[in-house]
Structures are given as structure tokens and as C-alpha cells.
């Protein structure tokens, strides 16, 4: 089982952003997806640093990909999407618009925000040139198993969301701007204050969600510790880890130890909780009744 680092979902200052990829160059991960997935307004702040990050990661032997935006509507966003194919690395499609803009026959990968729920969709994407698909996080284990079989026949690698706050929704509206009573066009980048998203609680102060500009995430951090054996035997070939502001390289190390057998089942979750007691874990989408659940043997 390999480890893929997904694109940073949050808005960090450019230096901090670049630092993450310096760190990841020496982290025990196989593949890194970078670029802006959530909001096209953020991209200009770190765009110039992308080539250097790609270089550092490739020099360290990592596979590197660039993500598309999750929701493409504006002209500027269509142009950004168009330009992805020209960056010299392969593109991770997270809105089918990116697929519409890729040159015919160019290989690509598919991110977790594309609705791949069944064999028909998987096969269609494979025919179009998909080589790797990270499944949507809400898929249950039964679906993962069926899709892995179909993927083997189609020659596609299957990846599953392994760690991090779950991307639950994307909107045209910016919630950070709305909360600060600003128009989206004049958001003043309020989301930059929350490097892991802003916690959203219920009226009874129960932690529930996290807002991240136009994106809504789970409060909990997904963690596939309990399912790693089942995922492996189903035929999943990579786990996706989603960056967070604190201790991310260390977290990558813990997952690597868990995959290599140095950490047993349950010990990974325990170590994560020891790192940060505020990091509430969930694994319900794979094997529970609800996504938010944590189920352990």
C-alpha cells in the first residue's frame, strides 16, 4: 500500500505552503498532489512557488500531480483549468471540466471530488485515460470492494481517503466571507486565519463541521487505521492523507509505520490522539452507519 498526500485544502501563506512541500520531500510518502482545489482566488498567492515545489518533490523521488479546482464556474477558473495541462506534470481531475479541457489521449488521475460510485463511471473514466482514481470518501467498504475488482480489469489504481478532515461539500458561496459580512469578491481572505478550517459547532456546542471558504469539511479527522487490512485485501493500492497545519510529516510517518507493521491496528489512532487530543477521529463512511462514527474492535 502506498501513501498519497492530497492537495492542501486550506489557505496558508506562501512561505508556510512551500515549507510543507520541503518537509514532505523527506517524508515516507510516494505521491504528492498539490495546487489549489478549493478557491481560485487563493492561487495567485502561491502560484509562483509551485514549480519549485514540484522540483523539490520530484528530486526526492515522489510522483507529483496538480489538482484542478473542485468547482469551475468563472472564466478565470476555466483558464486556470486549461493551463493545468501545460505544467508538465499529470493532472488530478476534481471537476469534470478539467477533463473537458485535457488534450485527447493525455493520461490523468481522478480525485475524491469526482463522483465515482460505480463500475460504469469507473470504466468510462478509464477509457478516457484515467490511471488512478481516489474514491469519494462517502463510499462504504462494499462499494470499495466492487470498484477495486472493476479497476483491476480496467488497469486503474484505486486510492481511498485515509486521513484528514473530510471534504463534505462545495458551494458557490463563501461562508468565511458571509460570516464576516463581506461580499465574496471582497472577502479579504478571511479563511487565511484558519489553517485547518474554522470549527462549526451546534447550538449545544457539539463539534460538527469545519468551514473553509466555499468548502465545508467534517469536524472529525477521518482515519483508516481500523480498515487498513480490509482495504489492502480489497485491492486498494494507496491511502490518501490530507495535509493539516500541525505535525503532518509526523502523521505521514505514523501511517507508514502502520502499513509496514511497526504499528498494530489501533495503535495508529492512539498515537494520533496522543499528538492532539482535539483531533477527533472518524471512520464511519467506510464501515459505520454514519460518516461521523468511530468504530473500533
Amino acid at each position, binding site marked *: 500500500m502506498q501513501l498519497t498526500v492530497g492537495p492542501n485544502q486550506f489557505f496558508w501563506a506562501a512561505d508556510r505552503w512551500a515549507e510543507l512541500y520541503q518537509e514532505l520531500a523527506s517524508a515516507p510518502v510516494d505521491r504528492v498532489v498539490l495546487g489549489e482545489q478549493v478557491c481560485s482566488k487563493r492561487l495567485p498567492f502561491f502560484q509562483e512557488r509551485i514549480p519549485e515545489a514540484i522540483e523539490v518533490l520530484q528530486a526526492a523521488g515522489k510522483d507529483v500531480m496538480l489538482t484542478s479546482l473542485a468547482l469551475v*464556474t468563472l472564466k478565470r477558473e476555466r483558464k486556470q483549468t486549461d493551463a493545468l495541462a501545460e505544467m508538465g506534470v499529470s493532472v488530478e481531475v476534481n471537476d469534470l471540466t478539467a477533463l473537458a479541457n485535457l488534450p485527447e489521449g493525455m493520461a490523468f488521475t481522478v480525485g475524491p471530488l469526482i*463522483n465515482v460510485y460505480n463500475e*460504469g463511471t469507473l470504466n468510462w473514466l478509464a477509457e478516457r485515460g484515467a490511471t488512478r482514481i481516489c474514491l469519494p470518501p*462517502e463510499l462504504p467498504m*462494499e462499494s470499495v470492494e466492487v470498484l477495486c475488482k472493476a479497476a483491476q480489469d480496467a488497469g486503474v489504481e484505486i486510492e481511498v481517503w485515509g486521513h484528514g478532515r473530510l471534504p463534505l*461539500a462545495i458551494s*458557490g458561496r*463563501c461562508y468565511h466571507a458571509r460570516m464576516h459580512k463581506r461580499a465574496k469578491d471582497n472577502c479579504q481572505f478571511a479563511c487565511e486565519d484558519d489553517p485547518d478550517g474554522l470549527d*462549526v459547532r451546534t447550538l449545544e456546542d457539539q463539534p460538527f463541521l469545519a468551514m473553509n471558504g466555499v468548502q465545508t469539511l467534517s469536524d472529525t479527522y477521518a482515519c483508516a487505521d481500523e480498515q487498513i487490512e480490509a482495504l489492502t485485501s480489497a485491492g486498494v493500492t494507496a491511502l490518501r492523507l490530507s495535509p493539516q497545519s500541525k505535525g503532518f510529516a509526523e502523521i505521514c510517518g505514523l501511517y507508514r509505520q502502520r502499513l509496514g507493521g511497526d504499528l498494530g491496528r489501533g495503535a495508529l489512532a492512539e498515537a494520533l490522539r496522543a499528538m492532539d487530543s482535539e483531533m477527533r477521529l472518524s471512520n464511519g463512511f467506510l464501515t459505520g452507519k454514519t460518516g461521523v462514527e468511530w468504530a473500533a474492535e
Partner: protein
Amino acid sequence: MVMEIVCPAGTPAALRAAVKAGAHTVYCGFNNETNARNFPGLNFDREEMIEGVAFAKAHGSKVLVAINTFPRAGAEHIWHEAVADAQAAGAHAVILADVGLLAYAAKNHPNLRLHLSVQAAAANADVINMYARDFGVKRVVLPRVLSVPEIAAINAETEVETEVFVFGGLCVMAEGRCSLSSYATGLSPNMNGVCSPASHVEYEDDGETLDARLGGYTIHRVGKDEGAPYPTLCKGCFKAGEATGHLFEDPVSLNAEQLIPQLEKAGVTALKIEGRQRSRSYVAQVVRNFRRAVDALDAGQPMPEGFLASLSEGQATTTGAYKKTWR
């Protein structure tokens, strides 16, 4: 040409009411997980669909069958059968969201007209044209994240007909790209055809306040004389930082009746009314109102005054993303 009114029907009675009230087109779904309004007591069995289409045809109306959830891995045949049965029933078109299902329908039912569901969240001309090129999609239901000028820009760049929502419940998230509901309840619009399902709703009225919970999470708390919104997750009242309120969307619903002339200028073909879960009396009232509006527009008369607010959730309405300030 008169703009087409596309009306919801959750039951055969609602279909008949919509047709009699002047609906050009009615959309409905089968009574299983293949459609995105898979609610208790709603929808059509095969026999009812055949009768419904026949009734609509006899009155000069068309029926669209929504098969707009994402087929479950290992069980795609359920969705494939729905497409075949919709065609056999005489549906004017099917409304699909999943690319796998679109590819299947295009290959196996080449004469069946395909509409792209709002659940596909196709929000720009590039991707819409891809759906047309690859699957022969004839119409797209636009996601409710676009402003009127953006809709006009799309229409300028595509031959595909566009249909937009003008009335009813409003998704603040891009449809088909949201798993808030399955995170909290295990049931999702994409997989199960339900959002914030009634089976997970609890109301608690202690005389002073009414709490509405979903999957154990308190979504609303209202005082004695306030309206009682359904606990739809994205319209809940939450806290973040120092703020408390409807952080995602207020419990309002969409009413774009006054924007109809602008939507027509933007090149929109059809106006869609949400609400397959609403009663036949609601459907009839809303349809009658919108039919009057498009007929007035076609005759060069002013729009009738709006008076649909009392039918709306929270009894407050918004023009949603059609006005850019919404964002």
C-alpha cells in the same frame, strides 16, 4: 416562444394536478433509490408511471423521469432497468446525473432524450459541451450556484438547452457534490436519494422552544411563535468563532419569479419548480402562478405580482445565487 414550465410531481395525484394547472412538463421518479427524492410515501411504481405519462400526453404535457442518483456499485442494473422502463412508459426524456449511467443510456437507448440533472453540477459551458459531445445530452439543469449573467454567458457558448430552478427549496451547496447528510445520518442524496432524511428527524416542543434535531445534532431552535423549518443541515443554526446563526444559508426558499424576464433574456429554455415532496394543492397553486407569469411575458404584459411566499419554507424567500451578492 413561451418559456417551458417544468413542474414536480411526487404522486400521480400531483401529476394530474400539475397538468390540469397548466404545466408544460412534469418531472417525477420511480419509488426507489434511483431518484433524488426517495421519500416515504412518494413517487411512482411502474404502472403509475405508464398511467401518468398517458394522462400527461392526453392533455398535451410531457413527462420527464428523474433517475438522478448515482448507481450503487454492484447494483447498476436497478438504474439500468429504470432507464429502460422510463423509455417504455413513453417519457419525453430521462434526467440523469452519473456519467456511467449517461454512457449506458447513450449506448443502449440511442433514441432516448437525455437531460443532465442538477446533481451533475455542470456549472460552465466547457463541461456542458462535453456532456453533449460524449452522451448527446440535449438539456442541462443548471446548478443553483450561478448568477444570471453567468447563465447568459453559458447559453452564449452552448447549443444545449438550459433549465433553471425558479421556485422551492434551495441547495446552498453544489448539488451532487455534498455528503453532509451521510456524514450525520448515513443517508445521502447521491447514494440514497434523500437529504436530511425524515427518519432521522426529531422535534421536541417544550412549550417555550421547539428544537429540531437531525441524527442527534440540534439544527434549529425556535421560539413559540416563530416558523418551524425542517432541519435541513445546510440551513441550520450553528456557532463558529464568536458568531451564532445560519452560517451556511438562512431557512429560506428560492423565488425567482420576478427574474423571469431576465432569465428569458439570458437564453434559458425552461423554468423548473422544486418540490416533489409537496402536496398536490401546492403544486397546482405554484404551477398556475408561473404559467400565468410566462404567458404574460410572452404576450408582452407585465409580470403578475408575486404572492407565493406563504407556501415557502420559513415563509421567507430569496433570489439565491441569481443575484451575485448572495455569494
